[in-house]
């Protein structure tokens, strides 16, 4: 058996893990979107890739980029899977602080101070 983590990315067609879905159902998902799994949601009924994604997210919060890299799935494929899991409430997504809120002076000051004190 191929050891997990040694699986080569790109060995299957992208539409295989997505179940033929070509585009995510929501447009806002970003690589820096944080994903929080709902531990109370049953995993049965999910396809293998979605189940694997959920199992990876259940222990703690990760960004979509990390999930994509950890599971060795292309970002576009990860977005499709995550999108459906958000629709079914298996995952809660928190998008990066949007541009409109970035004139929040207090937030920026906290970021700057944290960087300085690092």
């Amino acid at each position, binding site marked *: 058996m191929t050891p997990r*983590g040694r699986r080569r990315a790109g060995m299957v067609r992208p539409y295989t893990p997505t179940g033929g879905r070509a585009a995510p159902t929501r447009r806002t998902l970003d690589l820096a979107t944080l994903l929080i799994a709902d531990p109370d949601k049953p995993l049965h009924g999910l396809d293998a890739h979605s189940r694997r994604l959920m199992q990876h997210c259940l222990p703690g919060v990760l960004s979509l980029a990390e999930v994509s890299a950890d599971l060795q799935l292309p970002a576009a494929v990860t977005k499709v899977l995550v999108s459906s899991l958000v629709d079914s409430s298996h995952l809660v997504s928190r998008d990066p602080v949007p541009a409109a809120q970035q004139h929040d002076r207090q937030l920026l000051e906290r970021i700057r101070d944290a960087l300085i004190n690092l």
Partner: protein
Amino acid sequence: MRSSTSEGNYLAPGVSHSVKIVVLGPFAVGKTTFVGAVSEIRPTSTEERMTKAGEIVDTLRGLSDKNTTTVALDFGRLTLTDDIVLYMFGGPGQPRFDYMIDELMQGALGGVVLVDTARITESWDAMGRMEEADLPYVVAVNTFAASPRYSESELRKALDLHPSTPLVECDVREKSSAKSPLIALVSHLLSRPSLEPAS
């Protein structure tokens, strides 16, 4: 069943906000090194050996030590406070990946453009991308040992830099130095007049 390929990289409970910074610059300027120096996790990248096919497109002249290149996005993570985490994404430098950069810049806090003083003009593309996207950015000169040193005014002139755009020098290999462009960027954001609270 274990389904993950890495363990223990989860964010601290309570982290609820992410911010994103995009790092751009020409081929082999040090984007991956920069992200890696600042990141708290092993920078996740898909660096692979450059193929013969890539040699035609990616100029290696004068870059004798460069035998890998980033063919996909690489990123790093830095938990800043109990609730804020910063993600840095190093964009692929080659123009054929431009479509990835556009997506990357959306929703970003700002950008860092890396400059090698031996190839100053090669950073113009990255600066142009930031300006087109209307993304605030800082220019960080990577102090490569072998590259020529210039005064700030000479660099500003050569880069045709807007007077308000910060210019910093850093050694992208050192965390303490590599974080200076990030501090400069956030200070720059704080100094913008548009920051006044919207009524």
